[in-house]
């Protein structure tokens, strides 16, 4: 069910629905729902074993329209991979959604909180070994978090209490993929070009926030389809497996030719319309959000393609298979170095052939 265009009270009258799913939006080199995460560098916490919130923010210069509910944003829960050094002791945590500035830095303090949910814990276990839980913390399709446009940008976080036992014998941490410049000795991880900003943040309980050079398996549940760009670098083994790297490499591909000349791929995923048809387009930048009323109410969301001018080009039409489709847009070596410094934005519409309903994906920029 795609809920955004009607108020929650309407859906309260409908009761259970036949097709009700959500999509976790995660910025990570591989798809945690469908791929083994060979790209993971480490499990880690935002501020070692001290109390801190781990936040992922989505900068508006690379990502827009995540959870787009026709101009507002709706989040339906939080997805994250919970690594536990000792499964037999349950880990406690909170969920926090915060407003951010234009660079993605979360607002601090209670005033910056758009949502806080305390008192969550991991499942029971008799195992004293390390392990991982894939956590689905759901608000419900009728109980989503509404973020008005006036709230601006936002970040999603997990608030971890201090745990002096981590990492030696116990404690909660998150799967992370380190940036190339993280200086952590990671063999696997992100594979962006030079100059990419840190995508995540630490909000220590008793110190100033700071950005962190890695991505997390952490993100919101949305009902909009997900679009991710990926970089293709055949000279790198940062992914730990063949394929495109759909985290930071997609937004920051290296096409400079000295020596990298990354290719570009797009991946669309949608658990709501697993056999949906994807109509993909690109533009020379982000534009003013545009609502195409001629297809209302059968088209949900805003078009973010546009600038400069009406420079939108179609890429093609393809069909999802089991909720996912990955398409190579440009092979490695085929993007001219002359594009360094330019930006191309991709966005699509997923058409559900069962409900006959279209939904814009998020838009993502490749900043060469």
């Amino acid at each position, binding site marked *: 069910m795609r809920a955004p265009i009607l108020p929650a009270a309407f859906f309260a009258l409908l009761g259970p629905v*036949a*097709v*009700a*799913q959500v999509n976790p939006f995660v910025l990570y080199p591989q798809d945690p*729902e*469908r791929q083994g995460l060979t790209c993971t*560098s*480490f*499990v880690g916490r935002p*501020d*070692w074993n001290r109390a801190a919130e781990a936040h992922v923010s989505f900068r508006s210069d690379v990502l827009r329209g995540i959870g787009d509910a026709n101009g507002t944003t709706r989040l*339906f829960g939080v997805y994250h991979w*919970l690594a536990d050094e000792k499964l037999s002791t*349950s880990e*406690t945590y909170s969920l926090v959604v915060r407003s951010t500035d234009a660079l993605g830095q979360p607002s601090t303090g209670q005033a910056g*909180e*758009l*949502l*806080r*949910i305390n*008192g*969550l*814990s991991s*499942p*029971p276990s008799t195992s004293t070994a390390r*392990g*991982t*839980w894939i*956590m*689905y*913390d*759901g*608000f*419900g*399709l*009728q*109980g989503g978090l509404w973020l008005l446009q006036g709230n601006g940008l936002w970040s999603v976080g997990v608030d971890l209490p201090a745990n002096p036992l981590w*990492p030696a014998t116990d404690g909660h941490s998150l799967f992370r993929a380190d940036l190339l410049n993280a200086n*952590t000795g990671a063999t696997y991880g992100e594979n962006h070009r030079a100059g990419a900003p840190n995508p995540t943040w*630490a909000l220590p309980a008793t110190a100033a926030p700071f950005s*962190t050079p890695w991505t997390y398996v952490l993100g919101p*549940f949305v009902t909009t389809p997900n679009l991710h760009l990926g970089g293709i670098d055949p000279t790198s083994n940062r992914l730990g497996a063949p394929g495109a790297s759909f985290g930071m490499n997609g937004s920051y591909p290296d096409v400079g030719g000295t020596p990298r000349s990354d290719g570009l791929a797009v991946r669309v995923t949608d658990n709501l*319309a*697993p*056999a949906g*048809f994807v*109509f993909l*387009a690109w533009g020379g930048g982000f534009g003013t959000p*545009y609502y195409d009323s001629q297809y209302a109410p059968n088209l949900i969301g805003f*078009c973010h*393609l*546009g600038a400069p001018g*009406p420079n*939108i*080009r179609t890429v093609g039409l393809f069909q999802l298979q*089991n909720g996912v489709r990955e398409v190579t847009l440009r092979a490695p070596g085929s993007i001219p170095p002359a594009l360094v410094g330019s930006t191309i934005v991709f966005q699509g519409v997923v*058409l559900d*052939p*069962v409900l*006959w309903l279209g939904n814009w994906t998020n838009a993502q920029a490749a900043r060469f």
Partner: protein
Amino acid sequence: MRDFVLALGIALVAVLALVLLRGTDAAVVPGSEPSAPRTDSVLVPSQAQPAEAQVATPEPAARAAASLWLLPDGTRTAMLNGATDAPPLGEYWGTTVPWSPIVGIERNDQGVDWYRHQNGSYSTTQVVWRSDLQRHMAMTRVAHPAPAAAPAPAARPDR
């Protein structure tokens, strides 16, 4: 923009034609068939520990219905931890893990009851304070064991 809108319209028509040409079978997504709830019988997990949610005291029909949790197979069971009106489990079970029946109830060391599933997954309902709504609401929570063990933590401080 006009070109794009025109192209989108053409695509809509093309898709409609394709769906019609492929017949009605093509429009049915595997696994998306309406799962009409069967008789609302409360499951009694085989290894259930004593839990408040299993109390079978008579209560008004509406309240009883609100305390039953819709499962992905169309059956219903009692919500845990005092929750009512929790989202259906199917919304958060995910699409990549096949449905697995409930085989018991276990309580973690924080006092939270969880359903244990045959495949090792856990699920629960939990009442939480929603700071955005300024009221309590029920959440649906699922934990699937990851297919592979987590990698070793970084051997040095992260900053």
